[in-house]
């Protein structure tokens, strides 16, 4: 054990945080009820729970450790049945160093490793002192210089913030936060939130049609929250490429540094969203080994200026290739979902106009969204396809909801699934599902069956 170095004490944070939840709930209940006897009893219980959990956490921390070899990192964990894991440096695809506020106060960093292949574990995390984490990162994925190639500033920063804002993630974050708050406090925080939103809706009600103010207030708040999170995330953001490693750094409260091994990048996803179309800037998401970078784009580029793109990712061929047109592509396969929702809401709108005119404006909103989805689906009908580029990369274009994805698959580690039903078989077309190492599934509809069966992805 002498050879093994210990992790930072925050390694035991996962044991302590459960103890804290156990402690806080009875204490808060007693405080809300203002029962002092119960409060003292709860405090005594909390003290015992905390001491026990701290002892357990300290034991786990004492017996866990790591050591670095010439080609491997050895990590040891466990108390009664210790497990030693050997991680070869060349099996690492992505290395992520995150420093949230708590870790920065304790001079620690969280080091997360994502592997190249489909290992039994897809990633593993360590808590280390800041300097040790930086040194270990330099040993695993070494870089020589830190000259930033993409560092958005001014208007570009604003554009990048807007492109990074993910309203879906923000919504999920808010709902999870409210749910957790309810668990801890024991009463509904959603009611408090709704009463605050009602205040906002009263402010904007004079400028909007009746009934729409509340929905617009919620949408506005979600968008604002998404932008705020994105603003924090993209503060001081920079991307550089050196020694075959792509490095993305940034973050105001939570400092994040990601190092991608360029040879392990499995795919680059250019997402053409509604905002991207307006701003004429396209965010690139990188899938590398088992890492799915869905939370934030690696960088953004414009069609006019592709110098940064070719410097950072020279492997990526981003152009509209001549996708092989299928013999008989069915338009209903693409638009059925958007069209059915449009028809449903249109019918509801007609009923509302006749019976309840006051709610018709609320139903008009999903009609607009369905129309947008229908337009994207029609674009998918025209553009969706797959082709193998001259440099053996696979160019894929597909649509989902409001976004068009232009995917460039750089790896040959792709499983292919062709699916046909009797109608598509009679028309000589099929759907292709591509499985990437990061467990991402890509569906391309309406590809010629003979072309799909003769695809030689692997050579």
């Amino acid at each position, binding site marked *: 054990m002498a050879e093994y170095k210990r992790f930072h004490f925050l390694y035991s944070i996962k044991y302590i945080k459960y103890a804290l939840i156990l402690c806080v709930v009875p204490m808060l209940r007693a405080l809300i009820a203002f029962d002092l006897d119960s409060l003292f009893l709860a405090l005594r219980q909390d003290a015992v729970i905390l001491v026990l959990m701290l002892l357990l956490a300290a034991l786990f921390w004492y017996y866990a450790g790591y050591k670095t070899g010439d080609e491997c990192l050895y990590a040891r964990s466990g108390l009664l049945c210790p497990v030693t894991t050997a991680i070869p440096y060349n099996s690492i695809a992505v290395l992520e160093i995150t420093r949230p506020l708590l870790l920065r106060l304790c001079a620690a960093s969280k080091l997360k490793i994502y592997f190249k*292949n*489909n290992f039994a574990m897809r990633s593993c995390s360590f808590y280390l002192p800041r300097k040790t984490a930086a040194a270990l990162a330099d040993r695993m994925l070494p870089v020589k210089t830190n000259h930033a190639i993409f560092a958005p500033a001014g208007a570009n920063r604003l554009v990048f913030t807007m492109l990074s804002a993910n309203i879906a993630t923000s919504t999920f974050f808010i709902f999870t936060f409210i749910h957790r708050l309810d668990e801890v406090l024991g009463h509904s925080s959603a009611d408090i939130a709704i009463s605050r939103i009602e205040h906002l809706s009263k402010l904007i009600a004079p400028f909007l049609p009746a009934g729409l103010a509340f929905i617009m207030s919620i949408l506005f708040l979600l968008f604002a929250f998404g932008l705020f999170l994105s603003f924090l995330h993209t503060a001081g953001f920079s991307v550089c490429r050196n020694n075959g490693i792509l490095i993305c750094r940034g973050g105001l409260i939570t400092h994040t540094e990601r190092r991608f091994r360029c040879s392990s990048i499995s795919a680059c996803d250019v997402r053409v969203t509604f905002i991207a179309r307006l701003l004429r800037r396209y965010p690139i998401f990188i899938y590398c080994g088992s890492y799915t970078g869905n939370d934030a784009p690696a960088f953004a580029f414009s069609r006019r200026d592709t110098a940064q793109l070719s410097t950072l990712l020279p492997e990526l061929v981003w152009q509209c290739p001549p996708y092989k047109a299928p013999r008989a592509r069915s338009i209903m396969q693409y638009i059925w979902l958007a069209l059915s929702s449009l028809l449903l809401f249109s019918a509801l709108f007609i009923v509302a106009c006749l019976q309840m005119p006051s709610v018709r404006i609320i139903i008009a909103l999903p009609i607009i969204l369905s129309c947008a989805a229908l337009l994207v689906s029609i674009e998918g009908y025209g553009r969706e396809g797959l082709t193998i580029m001259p440099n053996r990369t696979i160019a894929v274009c597909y649509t989902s909801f409001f976004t068009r994805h232009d995917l460039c698959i750089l790896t040959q*580690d792709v*499983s*292919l699934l062709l*699916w046909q*039903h009797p109608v598509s078989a009679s028309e000589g077309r099929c759907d292709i599902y591509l499985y990437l190492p990061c*467990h991402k599934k890509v569906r391309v509809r309406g590809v010629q069956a003979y072309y799909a069966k003769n695809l030689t992805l692997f050579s």
Partner: protein
Amino acid sequence: MLFTVQKKGAALVACQFAALGLLIAAILALRFFAIAATVLCLWLVISLLLYVRLLHCKIYTQNHTLHIEKGLYFTVHIEIPICFITSGNIIETPLCRVFKVCYYVIHSSGKATLVLGLNKADALQLLTLMCKGNS
């Protein structure tokens, strides 16, 4: 080299599925006889379709790629590069051991593929083939 699912393998899997349906129907029949009878009929039809679907499963290698074809009407064709297959697992239940068949699971890039009712000898040969392809 072509491997196919034999009749006894397909029948074993379909029978196991049908037996599960019988069990559920028996439990339902205690209170709702009509529903139990409907569920059982549907279950037996699905079991028959499963038997037909499994019979049309074939595995072969071509150009360093493992090909798996499944289905008769709703066809599925899977292609996996052999060198990227991370593991192949043979799973045997006591009943499978009696009939010398097995369930074969192939783990590759982000995907696990299951082949039901493959002969044990064929599965072992396939495993050796993949090991050779990877080495």
